[in-house]
């Protein structure tokens, strides 16, 4: 299990490759990997967004993310999990969050990954302040429901 808070740009493919090749227990054979990557868009709530700052609560963030992975472990059987989250100044197209779960079965990998993403959004102490294209700043006040369909 690993939790990583990044102040610089995240290359999600490099993070995944490095973790799978170097950190995952090589004796443990996984059959399924469920992955979610969240990327910053240049639109939010019908406004053009130029950049944003991700504030967090150092220490509590890591605690809370570890707690989420442990909660997921109580519900699904998986072998390992990785969470990488960006903080600081972020621009559109930057990776904000990466969640990956390695499991024997695909149902466990996908469902645990989804659970971690949703729990992270509702309980991990991160806050977003957007700078709009107009120069105005605003705090993001809510998260959308991740289980909704368009």
């Amino acid at each position, binding site marked *: 299990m690993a939790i990583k808070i990044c102040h610089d740009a995240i290359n999600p493919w490099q993070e995944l490759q490095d973790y799978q090749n170097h950190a995952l227990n090589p004796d443990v054979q996984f059959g399924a990997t469920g992955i979610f990557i969240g990327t910053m868009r240049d639109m939010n709530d019908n406004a053009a967004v130029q950049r944003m700052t991700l504030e967090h*609560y150092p220490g509590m963030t890591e605690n809370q993310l570890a707690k989420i992975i442990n909660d997921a472990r109580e519900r699904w059987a998986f072998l390992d999990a990785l969470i990488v989250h960006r903080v600081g100044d972020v621009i559109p197209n930057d990776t904000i969050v990466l969640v990956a779960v390695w499991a024997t079965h695909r149902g466990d990998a996908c469902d645990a990954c989804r659970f971690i993403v949703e729990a992270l959004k509702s309980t991990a102490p991160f806050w977003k302040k957007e700078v709009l294209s107009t120069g105005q700043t605003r705090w993001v006040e809510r998260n959308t429901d991740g289980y909704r369909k368009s």
Partner: protein
Amino acid sequence: MSITVRYFASLGERLGRSESTVDFIREMTVNDVWRLDTAEMSMPANILAAVNMEYAHPDDRVHNGDEVAFFPPVTGGQSVGD
């Protein structure tokens, strides 16, 4: 007895500070810390609290040396509102 109080994000901006120290002699709850340090009667419904980096309820007791944090709803992960 002394505790550290921290405020995050829009709440820190509204109060004009991100950290302060509260000294007290009697037993206190999280909500007491809020009242004492912000001079507001009680925590707004949408404000979350943590004690020593774990989520806490307004009625939870605080102890000497604790770090109490207050913050607005969290908005991490990927967010799309449109």
